[in-house]
């Protein structure tokens, strides 16, 4: 039975673990060299799509099943969340991509040109059919992290840059935990933030493309986040020209009016992943580790945090348990 816990890392995993443990009466301290969530952690750069059904086209079954709990969890934490689903489209030349995507996903509905025009007037006339993934949601990651931190502080959780460890250690350091997790690798993602005040989308839009897939997430106030690069590299340096050009070109293909958008930000980071791209929980010095959330941080952190709390408080062994953290 854990009464006190020290959480290492104030990214999305650390904050969710802090929320679950503190809600169950554990005295929690979060340690992060930066003192809280920020650009040093990869969740700061996330898309914020809670899109378990879309992810199911490529991800393993647990991502879909556990991901479906995420929207409720974030809403219960007071996060500002939009439940409008995701629209999936493809350029006319690559129609087959949409059929494949439909076969490999569930909980979607076909829209024709009229349906698209009604759902997203901006895209009227640009696509003749689309998939609407109705059960999906999105949030703004930086705001969700900042709000959750404030909520945790109000609940008595301490945030420190450095502190002596006390109680059970819960290692949520992400890529920094490679010192104890040799199987962890980095998968690079690049993103662009635009301001296009005249354009409006009510939900994330995914553009399927054999070479240049794209997602556009509306952040409100005419701000949009573009993302989707996924490169097998742990490099955290600046985004490459090629990736940015590809993202911007794809946005232009979605709607030429994006050409007039103002570029606000170009970002890049590496997400921690294990070889099966599924997360792991296991024993580590003084406690446990939670890691390897890959591109599913906001989607899976709530479920993982719940499992970790169950394990520490009731001894219920979690899914994704890996006894040997040196395993590759």
């Amino acid at each position, binding site marked *: 039975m854990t009464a006190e816990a020290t959480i290492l890392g104030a990214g999305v995993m650390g904050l969710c673990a802090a929320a679950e443990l503190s809600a169950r009466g554990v005295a929690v301290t979060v340690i992060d060299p930066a003192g809280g969530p920020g650009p040093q952690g990869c969740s700061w750069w996330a898309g914020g799509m809670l899109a378990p059904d879309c992810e199911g086209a490529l*991800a393993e079954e647990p991502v879909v099943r556990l991901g479906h709990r995420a929207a409720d969890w974030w809403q219960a934490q007071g996060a500002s969340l939009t439940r409008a689903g995701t629209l999936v489209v493809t350029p006319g030349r690559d129609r087959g991509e949409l059929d494949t995507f439909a076969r490999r996903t569930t909980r979607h509905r076909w829209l024709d040109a009229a349906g698209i025009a009604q759902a997203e007037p901006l895209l009227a006339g640009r696509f003749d059919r689309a998939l609407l993934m109705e059960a999906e949601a999105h949030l703004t990651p930086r705001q969700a992290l900042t709000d959750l931190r404030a909520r945790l502080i109000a609940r008595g959780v301490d945030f420190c840059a450095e502190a002596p460890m006390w109680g059970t250690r819960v290692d949520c350091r992400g890529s920094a935990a490679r010192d104890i997790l040799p199987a962890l690798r980095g998968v*690079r993602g690049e993103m662009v933030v635009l301001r296009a005040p005249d354009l409006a989308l009510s939900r994330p839009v995914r553009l399927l493309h054999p070479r240049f897939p794209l997602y556009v997430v509306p952040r409100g106030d005419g701000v949009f986040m573009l993302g989707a690069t996924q*490169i097998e*590299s742990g490099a955290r*340096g600046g985004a*490459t020209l090629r990736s940015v050009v590809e993202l911007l070109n794809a946005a232009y293909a979605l709607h030429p009016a994006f050409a007039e958008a103002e570029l606000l930000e170009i970002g890049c980071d590496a997400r921690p*992943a294990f*070889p*099966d*791209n599924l997360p792991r929980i296991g024993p580590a010095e003084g406690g446990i580790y939670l890691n390897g959330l890959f591109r599913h941080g906001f989607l899976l952190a709530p479920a993982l945090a719940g499992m970790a709390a169950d394990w520490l408080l009731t001894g219920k062994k979690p899914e994704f348990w890996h006894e040997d953290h040196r395993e590759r």
Partner: protein
Amino acid sequence: MPVFYGTEIASALMLGTALYPSPAILAEAFRRSGAGVATVSLRREAGGGREGQDFWALIRDLGVRVLPNTAGCHSVREAVTTAHMAREVFGTDWIKLEVIGHADTLQPDPFGLVEATRILSDEGFRVFPYCTEDLVLCDRLLRAGCGVLMPWGAPIGTGRGLMNPYGLRSLRAHFPDVPLVVDAGIGLPSHAAQAMEMGFDAVLLNTAVARAGDPAAMALAFARAIEAGALARAADPMEPRDMAAPSTPLLGQAVLA
């Protein structure tokens, strides 16, 4: 089994390593299919730098021969530099040489390819050029120093199969002793079987396996099709003919039946 530059490979299936849902599924595809060679890109997967070490380590752990490639290179200079980097990273002088001449179709640049093949062969590289099925180009590539040819079946990632069977057959007939690999454009196991029936030594593909709903099962399907095609080639298949010839004699059949 194919022999490239004096090295015999255990399988005529060669697989690319990009686009899989996860490295674990990639490894499973190799394990189930018994593929003999893994190609890996140094440019795209690595984000242009030397930071892909984790992924490259996973590729080395597959336990198969690694054939690094220069995918995404649009000039001779880029391709040569990438080949140097590949030799250092993977400790091999094998290089799958791609010099792209057209951004949309990813069609090889035949002129740059011959030049880069000459440069790299002179430096001691064992070059596997990704080329079109043009007979004259293939002849020039061999004269430039390579000992393997890798003509496309169709443009990269299109899955359209063997678009010019006549041209591919001509290559086999003109270069009976050169290892020939159909590289790119393969979409179905039947395409791979067709290449092997034509007498190709191996087939290299990536998207058709990596983007299948079940990549490991599809890799196995390709391995079996390739085995079937090679067996058929060795068994000397019949020639098509115009006249129907019954496989059971008509004589003796009841007239009124």
